[in-house]
């Protein structure tokens, strides 16, 4: 009897994994549904005794079983895409069945929590602080310091809130954690609860991720006894990108409009239901079990400058080898999209890479030398955000993308602050006007508007929308009609 391992990650399913699995079963194989390795261009990827085949369609199954398929990629773990990675958070990716407790334990699961249970809250926080872990949601705030603030705050009740509202186009690492290794997130939440003295955690998941929601529900139910009396509850968003902003997310859990709150007070002091709350991103919490199990030093040993540990980088958009690439900070943008990503999927030259989601800047190839770390990208007028890299080939009109950035902001603005509420709509209109009849005055007005939004907005939605707009304007003025289009 042949055992075939095929992912049940929603990307694999979207690419036909269920049909391929059914074909293997029909052919008499035992099929195990595991997490995804993250080599998305190969999905659906079948793993038969460590040998990989992909991307498969049901009609490829007979050839695979007959040993005649040309879709073989050899030993999966030796694949260069994987071999170059350093997997801490995604160590189990592709190897375990997401909701199989036995698989999780066998692969080292719960070791972090067991270790944390032997420590005092202060010791847990000290280890997280020592690891250099910074929030993976984009702002890069040191996690240990945030936890310490919550631990010190006075409150009748404290909360851990997992921000699983990752809605940035070009990112999917959170989704892969929740779908592929949900117990790891549960473990991270439980450790956070111990550290800050919280009784309850909420995992706020965007409604666009139904599979992640289902897996998290199941994993929480299966591990309830292991983390008790700590309680974890899934909350489902309702179609509001802005709820990825932590204070809007807290309002949403409370059952309010997802409007951004002014800070201070910080959520760490006055967060969910007015109580001290640690709001952490999925990847941040997912990194915690490793730190507790393997030690802060093991985590801190990897990285670049003040950006310690690994970063799950997501290669997306028009890229040949799209998927998840976890590595220490410090690889350059060019290495990632060209050497690792293999250039565009279309085979055309890369025109731009948007780094950090819809609020990230568009980088031309001239930025390819910039290493992936928080500080270097800030210096290059960008941000790494969630470390999603969206590749565009030379068919893209960057004027369209600048307009889209404003339109996206207008569609998702909570409407509380004026620069974002009115500015994003005016931005769309202004870019249209500029492109229809370019004038220096309107170009200057667009820059002024971006300045108003950047420094005037209440949160990053309005505040960072100028990144894609201004980067497009700066690097591709011809797409706004401001200089003549030249053919290279």
């Amino acid at each position, binding site marked *: 009897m042949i055992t075939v391992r095929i992912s049940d990650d*929603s*990307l694999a*399913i*979207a*690419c036909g994994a269920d049909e391929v699995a059914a074909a293997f079963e029909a052919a008499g194989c035992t099929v195990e549904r595991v997490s995804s390795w993250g080599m*998305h*261009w190969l*999905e659906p990827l079948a793993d038969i005794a460590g040998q990989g085949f992909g991307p498969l369609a049901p009609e490829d199954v007979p050839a695979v079983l007959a040993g005649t398929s040309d879709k073989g990629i050899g030993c999966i773990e030796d694949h260069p895409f994987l071999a170059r990675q350093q997997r801490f958070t995604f160590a189990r990716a592709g190897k375990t069945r997401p909701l199989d407790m036995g698989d999780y334990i066998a692969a080292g699961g719960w070791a972090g929590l067991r270790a944390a249970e032997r420590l005092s809250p202060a010791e847990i926080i000290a280890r997280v602080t020592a690891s250099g872990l910074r929030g993976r949601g984009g702002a890069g705030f040191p996690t240990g310091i945030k936890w310490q603030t919550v631990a010190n705050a006075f409150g009748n009740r404290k909360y851990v809130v997992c921000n699983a509202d*990752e*809605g*940035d*186009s*070009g*990112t*999917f690492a*959170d*989704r892969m954690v929740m779908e592929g290794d949900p117990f790891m997130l549960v473990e991270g939440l439980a450790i956070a609860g111990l550290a800050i003295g919280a009784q*309850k955690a909420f995992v706020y998941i965007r*409604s*666009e*991720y*139904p*599979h992640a929601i289902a897996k998290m529900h199941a994993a929480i139910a299966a591990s309830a006894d292991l983390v008790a009396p700590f309680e974890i509850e899934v*909350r*489902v*968003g*309702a*179609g*509001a*990108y802005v709820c990825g902003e932590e204070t809007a997310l807290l309002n949403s*859990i*409370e*059952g*309010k*409009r*997802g*409007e951004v709150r002014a800070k201070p007070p910080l959520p760490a002091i006055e967060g969910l*239901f007015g109580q001290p709350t640690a709001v952490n991103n999925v990847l941040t919490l997912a990194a915690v079990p490793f730190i507790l199990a393997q030690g802060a030093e093991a985590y801190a040993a990897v990285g670049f400058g003040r950006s310690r540990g690994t970063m799950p980088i*997501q*290669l*997306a*958009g*028009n*890229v040949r080898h*799209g998927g998840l690439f976890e590595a220490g900070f410090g690889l350059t943008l060019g290495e990632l999209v060209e050497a690792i990503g293999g250039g565009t*999927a279309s085979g055309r030259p890369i025109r731009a890479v*948007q780094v950090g989601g*819809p609020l990230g800047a568009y980088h031309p190839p001239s930025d390819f030398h910039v290493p992936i770390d928080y500080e270097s990208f800030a210096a290059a007028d960008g941000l790494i955000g969630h470390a*999603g890299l*969206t*590749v*565009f*080939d030379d068919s*893209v009109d960057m004027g369209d*993308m600048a307009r*889209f950035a404003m339109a*996206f902001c207008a*569609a*998702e603005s*909570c409407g509380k602050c004026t620069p974002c509420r009115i500015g994003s709509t005016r931005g769309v209109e202004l870019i249209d006007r500029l492109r229809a009849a370019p004038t220096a005055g309107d170009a200057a007005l667009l820059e002024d508007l971006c300045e108003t939004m950047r420094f005037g907005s209440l949160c990053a939605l309005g505040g960072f929308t100028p990144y894609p707009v201004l980067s497009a304007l700066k690097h591709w003025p011809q797409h706004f009609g401001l200089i003549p289009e030249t053919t290279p």
Partner: protein
Amino acid sequence: MDLVAAIVAAHAGREGPLLPILHDVQAAQGHVSEEAIRTIAHGLNLSRAEVHGVVSFYHDFRTQPDPRPVVKLCRAEACQARGVEALVAALPPQNQVRIETVYCLGLCSAGPAALAAGRPHARLDAAKLAALVEAAT
């Protein structure tokens, strides 16, 4: 007790129960009517203005019924980079399926992507999208 009141009662005692209730009401009735808003407001001891404010904030909630099947099509940057706008432009006109724009399904390395009847679809081209819409009706 009517259905909405029963849903409210089922969530009573939860911390911040409004969004879960709205999801359930929408799932059960296809939309959140003004009548439902009144019932929810009464049940949770909120003003109906507050509930209306919340319902109208989130794009997932509808106040008017629309029984058509839905295809959620991602039109965010990563899918744009892979040509979703051309697919949209090429879609034959139809009114049987509600094609909703969403921004990101997390399938960004394999776009264009869509979600129909709870199942994700990736690597769409014009034919696949048309087939998806056809299948949804």
